[in-house]
């Protein structure tokens, strides 16, 4: 067992964990933040995407112990009580069907728009290339991210 300490969505967590525990299982089962999902076992689907020190990572490809000391953001921490503009855009553009890919998609979009506030459609598609959506065929997701970029630029937010 190893002791780890992380901050998730600004809150401190500390646990004794087995060295083999995956970070995604830590987030879901120890921190009880179930907005981070599991859709595969090989790092291909992106349902488990979280931000680790601001960068999107697939939390099923990391061990919890590797995140010791890190700052994590999950979907629950994106906007506090309200909705982030990306979340609003996902609703406006019908970018959600079953919702299983949605948290990962939104976090990938968030990372993209931080780095590139004015992405082209192709850049949006590339940014979510690691996130599978089985429901939407992606078009409305791509549109939502483009729409979010516009509203965020207009309101000067990031």
């Amino acid at each position: 067992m190893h002791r780890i300490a992380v901050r998730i969505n600004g809150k401190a967590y500390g646990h004794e964990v087995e060295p083999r525990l995956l970070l995604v299982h830590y987030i879901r089962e120890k921190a009880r933040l179930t907005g981070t999902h599991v859709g595969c076992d090989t790092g291909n689907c992106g349902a488990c995407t979280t931000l680790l020190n601001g960068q999107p990572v697939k939390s099923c490809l990391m061990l919890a112990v590797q995140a010791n000391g890190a700052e994590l953001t999950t979907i629950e921490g994106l906007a506090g009580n309200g909705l982030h503009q990306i979340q609003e855009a996902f609703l406006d553009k019908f970018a959600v069907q079953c919702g299983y890919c949605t948290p990962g998609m939104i976090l990938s979009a968030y990372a993209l728009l931080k780095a590139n506030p004015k992405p082209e459609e192709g850049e949006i598609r590339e940014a979510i290339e690691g996130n599978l959506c089985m429901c939407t065929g992606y078009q409305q997701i791509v549109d939502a991210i483009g729409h979010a970029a516009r509203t965020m630029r207009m309101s000067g937010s990031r």
Partner: protein
Amino acid sequence: MLNLDELFVTRKWVGKPVRRDQDIRFIRGEATYVDDLEMECGHVAFLRSIYAHARIKRIDTSKAAALSGVLAVVTGEDVARETRPIVPRAITRPATQYVMAVEKVRYVGEPLVAVVAEDRYLAEDALELIDVEYEPLRPLVEIEDALREDAPLIFEEAGSNELLHEKLEHGNIEAAYREADLFVKERFRLHRYSSTPLENWAIIAKHEKGDDAFVVWANDQQPGRSTTNVCNMLGIPNSGLRLIVPDSGGGFGIKLAIWPYIVILCLLARRTDRAVKWVQTRREHLLAGTHAPDARVEIELALRRDGRILGLSIKDIQNDGSFIHTAGIYGLIKFATMVGCYDIGATRAELVSVVTNKGPTVQNRGVGKPTMIFVLERMVDIAARRVGLDPAEMRFRNFVQPGQMPYSTPSGEIYESGNYPECLRKALSLSGYEEFRKRKEEMREQGRYLGIGMSASIEPGTSNLGYYYTHRGLPEYMGNAEGAIVGVDYDGNVNVLLGSVDEGQGHATTTAQVVADMLGIDPGRVSMSTHLDSLISPFLGHSGCYSNKFNDVDLGAVIMATKKVRDKMLRIASHALGVEAGELTFRNGEICWAKDERRSIAFKEIATVAYKKILLLPEGMEPGLKEIAYYKNPAAKPPSKANFNVQLTHSNSVHMATVEVDVDTGAVTIVKYVIVHDCGTQINPGIVEGMAIGSTVHGIGAVLYEEFVYDENGQLLSTSFMDYLKPLAVGLPRFEVAHVESPCPTTLLGTKAVGEGGAIGSLAALANAVEDALAPFGVKVTSLPITPEKVVRAVRETGEI
């Protein structure tokens, strides 16, 4: 169809892209999927067969059972002692199968042993300690292997590896053949693929010791059937199972086959006296979580010289793998769309279901209709070339015309509505068909190969359950229906409960739009729990989310229940206001006197009378303001081999794909994609568009990327998303979606199927486009998927994909 002006008191919401605010939990990460439920559980892992076909000689579980933290180890033999075998739906030969392997394994991945442990990691550790001795048998992987004279029998008691072999003729096929001037015939090979919902299967089962009852949480798509199956197999009364379906991360048919695992989990819960949880891994899902069967199809069209199709014969052999419950269904359901969009007077079908040592099959998005439309629409292109017609003209000549509606196909399927020529005209114009043909020639000069392909397809909805028994007496299900409860709460807001579940289609918002217009309120005042609880939800054997039935019977039940509530509210208001009910109208959450709107009563006050001040109710009226209704589609015919309708509504679409093929690398790029869709009345165009595109991408995946590849020993080689490739955001075109609206006369709102169409029509559209692009090389497309390797080989050597 009802008169919508009479049904609705406002026309503000139905038909508008209303945001899915009812489902805000999904974007906040606050949804509740089964795996999210907070519960102390034992965790389940399965040891699965490593052989495709083998006798089980010995299983030694003693070391696993002794591992600290292991709560139970259960083998297939143990399960068979406590359960009844699976009841097949369509096959005609006897075959006995339990929910876990007994005596024999029949596919790689078949569950052999279940372990329950304190956590999943430990349960997986325990699997490593189990010793299985197998006696390998000859694996039968492809249809041809299973049908060979000397092939061993997969189910000995069946006496054959063909579990269903049916010949059906409708219309005068002999006459059609006599009258025909020419015949075109082709053989096609379809591969195995699946829609792979992003959330895998998940189940929690709890045993209530006192009365030997179970509470189960599962992402089950058809709880009506699952509860029946699970209770029968466990030999418990219906009251012994409460099934709860929380949020579900996509279904596409694949989650219709989860109930065998519910049976196992119940046994494990009873054995350990703990809540037990199993979350399928993606590898398990791909290996043993059900596919669409692969198939060999021979099809022949009997034609007149002018291109009119007079008759159609099909021989359809499905590789149904090793799950006898659904084996045979894919063959039979094809009758829903056997003649596609065309007026073809006679059909002959020979349907064969073959068991092999591939994994189980279940109703994947479109169920058999993707195959049927693929072969038919390929044939129409091939026939067009033979008679020297443009493929569009060939279709125009054969379409069922709008004036022929309702049109009965030879087997009795009734197309109640649709305007097929209009859809094609629109698609031709949106895709720039004529200009493209010129551009194609120019590009060819530069050594670039572009092609355009089309398909016209029927997208049937609402299964007339029971069609699959047309050959063996009366089925246990017939028709289709759903139940709903609609209530007005104390606060005057509306609450809906449905017998169905939601796999991501946004039922809550769609329902809210309909109810809002029926009661003259904002959809924000209508809430609907999409979580099903068999103890409290209205419930039928048909209940569930499948075959595009929501827009029809589910909303039908909601509408009928809302009408009952509305009538009762009017009577209470009439009594309270002292005004004839006929003179009352609904306005912004109030009922008021049409002649003087100041005389009004708010929903909240009406509810207060109904629930609390019940002495103010009209004489003899029951308290409460909650109504239940069940609604069945009126078009269902009872099963009969001579005349039956497999499905009850018929949407249609035309897909037009433009592709470029790189003949050196074999890469196919979709340059443009047009979908013209007719699903009758649209309730929420935003949702409809998402499903039209999403289902199309399923088909594109099936054509270009996805395939379950087995080696000759029956080992599945595509067990992760590294080998089983799904479409990504990159590499897809922007889809252009347009609509034609032919309201359906047999549903209350004129709505028709929405969720499956793209998965049906896209296969042939893309294949036809690729064939068009490769016309200079004379390449024929007779199989799927169209992989780069196959393209290159076809161009250089074989001439056939």
